C-alpha cells in the first residue's frame, strides 16, 4: 500500500514536471495562431500572465533561491517601467530603440537593487521583508511626488511602441511571443545559474547562513549578486509593461503588485521555476477567466486559493529534490560533482 502510494506520487511528480509544462507551452504558443472568439482578449490575459512569470522569476531569485524575503519587488518593476518611459516617449523627447531601453531598464534596476542590498546585508527574514516593503513604498512615493520628473500621478503617456529589428511589435501577437521568448530565455539562464557554483552558494546561504560563511562562502557577495539579478529581471518586466501598456502611473506599482508577485511564486512552489509559470497562470489569468461570474469572481478566486494551499501547502511544484538522489551508486558521481 505504502509502495503504491509512493509510486503514484512519483508518477504525479513526473506528470507535473514534464507533461504539464509541455502542455502549457503548447497552449500558450498556439493561442495567437488560431482564430477564435475574443482572441485578442485571451492574448492580453495570457500575455499579462507571461509578464508576471517574468516578475515571478525575478522575485524567485530573491526569495526562492537566495532566501532573502522581499516585499518590495514592485520597486524594481517601477524603476524598469519608468526608465523605459523616460527613454522612449515624448516626455523627455528621447526615443531610444526598445532593445536598448529594456537593457538599460534592467541594468538600472540591478544597480539600485545592489545598492539597496548593501545596508541591509546583516538583516534576515522578516526584518529584511520590512525594509524592502518600505523601499517599495519609497519608490512609489518618489514617483508620485517628483512631479517635475515623473509627472506625478498623471503618469507618463504615449510611450513608444516597441520596435525590434524594424518589426513593429505593437501588434499584440508579436509582443506576446516576445514575452514568452524572454520567459524561455530566463528559464534557461536561471537553470544554468542554479546549477552553478553561485546556485550552490545561494542554497547554502538559504539553509544556514552561519554555516555557509564557515564553509567559506562570501555571503555578502552572493546576496548582492542575488539582489542584482532579481532586480535586473524585475527591471526587464517593468520595461515590457511600460511599452506594452503605452502609459504608466505610480499606482501601477503599489504594494499589491509586490504581494501578488510573492503570491505567484508561493502558489507555484517556492524555489521552483516551473512552478512560477503555473502560479502566474492561476493567479493572474484565473481572475480574468472567472469574469463570467461577475461579482462573485473574487470570492471564488479566494476560495480556490485557500483550497489550493490546504491541498498542496508546498505549492503546485515543490522545490526540486537534490540531483544526487538519482545517483544510485552510492559513490560520488564525478560528473555532477562540485561545480566550480
Amino acid at each position, binding site marked *: 500500500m505504502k509502495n503504491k502510494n509512493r509510486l503514484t506520487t512519483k508518477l504525479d511528480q513526473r506528470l507535473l514536471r514534464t507533461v504539464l509544462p509541455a502542455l502549457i507551452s503548447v497552449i500558450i504558443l498556439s493561442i495567437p495562431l488560431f482564430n477564435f472568439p475574443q482572441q485578442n482578449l485571451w492574448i492580453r490575459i495570457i500575455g499579462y500572465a507571461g509578464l508576471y512569470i517574468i516578475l515571478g522569476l525575478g522575485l524567485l531569485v530573491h526569495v526562492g533561491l537566495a532566501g532573502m524575503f522581499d516585499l518590495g519587488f514592485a520597486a524594481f518593476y517601477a524603476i524598469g517601467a519608468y526608465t523605459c518611459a523616460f527613454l522612449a516617449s515624448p516626455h523627455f523627447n528621447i526615443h531610444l530603440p526598445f532593445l536598448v531601453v529594456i537593457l538599460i531598464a534592467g541594468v538600472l534596476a540591478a544597480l539600485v537593487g545592489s545598492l539597496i542590498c548593501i545596508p541591509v546585508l546583516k538583516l534576515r527574514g522578516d526584518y529584511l521583508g520590512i525594509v524592502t516593503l518600505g523601499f517599495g513604498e519609497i519608490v512609489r512615493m518618489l514617483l508620485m511626488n517628483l512631479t517635475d520628473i515623473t509627472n506625478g500621478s498623471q503618469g507618463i503617456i504615449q510611450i513608444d511602441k516597441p520596435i525590434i529589428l524594424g518589426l513593429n511589435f505593437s501588434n499584440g501577437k508579436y509582443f506576446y511571443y516576445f514575452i514568452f521568448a524572454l520567459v524561455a530565455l530566463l528559464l534557461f539562464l536561471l537553470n544554468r545559474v542554479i546549477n552553478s*557554483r553561485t546556485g*550552490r*552558494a545561494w*542554497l*547554502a546561504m538559504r*539553509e*544556514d547562513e*552561519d*554555516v*555557509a*560563511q*564557515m*564553509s*567559506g*562562502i*562570501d*555571503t*555578502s557577495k552572493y546576496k548582492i549578486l542575488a539582489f542584482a539579478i532579481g532586480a535586473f529581471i524585475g527591471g526587464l518586466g517593468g520595461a515590457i509593461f511600460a511599452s506594452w501598456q503605452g502609459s504608466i502611473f505610480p499606482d501601477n506599482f503599489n504594494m499589491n503588485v509586490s504581494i501578488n508577485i510573492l503570491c505567484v511564486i508561493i502558489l507555484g512552489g517556492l524555489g521552483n521555476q516551473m512552478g512560477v509559470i503555473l502560479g502566474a497562470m492561476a493567479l493572474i489569468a484565473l481572475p480574468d477567466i472567472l469574469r463570467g461570474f461577475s461579482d462573485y469572481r473574487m470570492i471564488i478566486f479566494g476560495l480556490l486559493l485557500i483550497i489550493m494551499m490546504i491541498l498542496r501547502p508546498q505549492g503546485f511544484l515543490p522545490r526540486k529534490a*537534490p540531483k*544526487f*538522489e538519482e*545517483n*544510485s551508486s*552510492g*559513490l*560520488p558521481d*564525478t560528473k555532477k*560533482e*562540485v561545480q*566550480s
Partner: protein
Amino acid sequence: MAPLLQVNGIKTYYGNICALKGVTFEVNAGEIVCLIGSNGAGKTTTLKSITGLLHPQEGSIFFNNEEITLLDAHRIVEKGISMVPEGRHVFSKLTTLENLEMGAFTRKDRTAIQQDIENVFQLFPRLKERAKQSAGTLSGGEQQMLAIARALMAKPKLLLLDEPSMGLAPILLESIFDNIKEINAQGTTVLLVEQNTKLALAIADRGYVLQTGLVSLSGMSKELRESEMVQKTYLGVA
C-alpha cells in the same frame, strides 16, 4: 617556532555586553588544545571571534604569522581554519554528499576533493552508507560526524570544534573523540571547546580554563586534571 594560532588579549562584545575580557592563548601546530569552562564563560564567543563570525574590539589574532583579527569569515576559511559549529548545523535538506561538497566550496581542485570525500568516508564509514540521504534524516551522532567531515573538506590546518559532545549518547561520544584524535594524528591541529571536561582533558595535550571571559588557568592536560580548582568545579571530584 611561532604558534599556529595566537590569540592576544581579545575583547569581544555583544552590543554593550563584554563577553570576552581579554582572552590570551595559543595553539601550536600538531596539538590538540581544549578550552573548558562553564556556560557563559565565553568559549563559543572565542571560537566565533577566531572564525570571523564576530570581531573583537581589542586585541589581535594571528594565524600562521598572519593577522586575521578583522578578516571576514569566508577569508579566514581560505586561510585554513574550519569550524564545526555547536549543535551540528548540517544543511538538512541537502544530502550527506552535498554537505561534504559544500564544505569544499573554497577549493577548486576537483580530483583532490574526490579523494578527500573518500578519506572522510574512511574516517566515518557511517557517512558513506548515508551518502545519498538528506542530512536532516541522519541521527544526531551521524550529523555530528557529518559536521566534522564537512569542516575537514576545506582542508583546514586548524579545526575548531564547538561542543562535539552535545546531545550524544556516551558510546557515540567515545567514537567521535577517537575520530578527533585520528584527525589530529593525520596532521590537523585541533582546538576543542567542551563542557565535558573529563573527555576533553583525556584527549587534549593542553588546556585553558575560561571563566567569565578570562583565562583563569592553563596548563598541560595532566596538570589541569590534577588541579584542585578544575577537580572541584568541572570534574565534580569532592
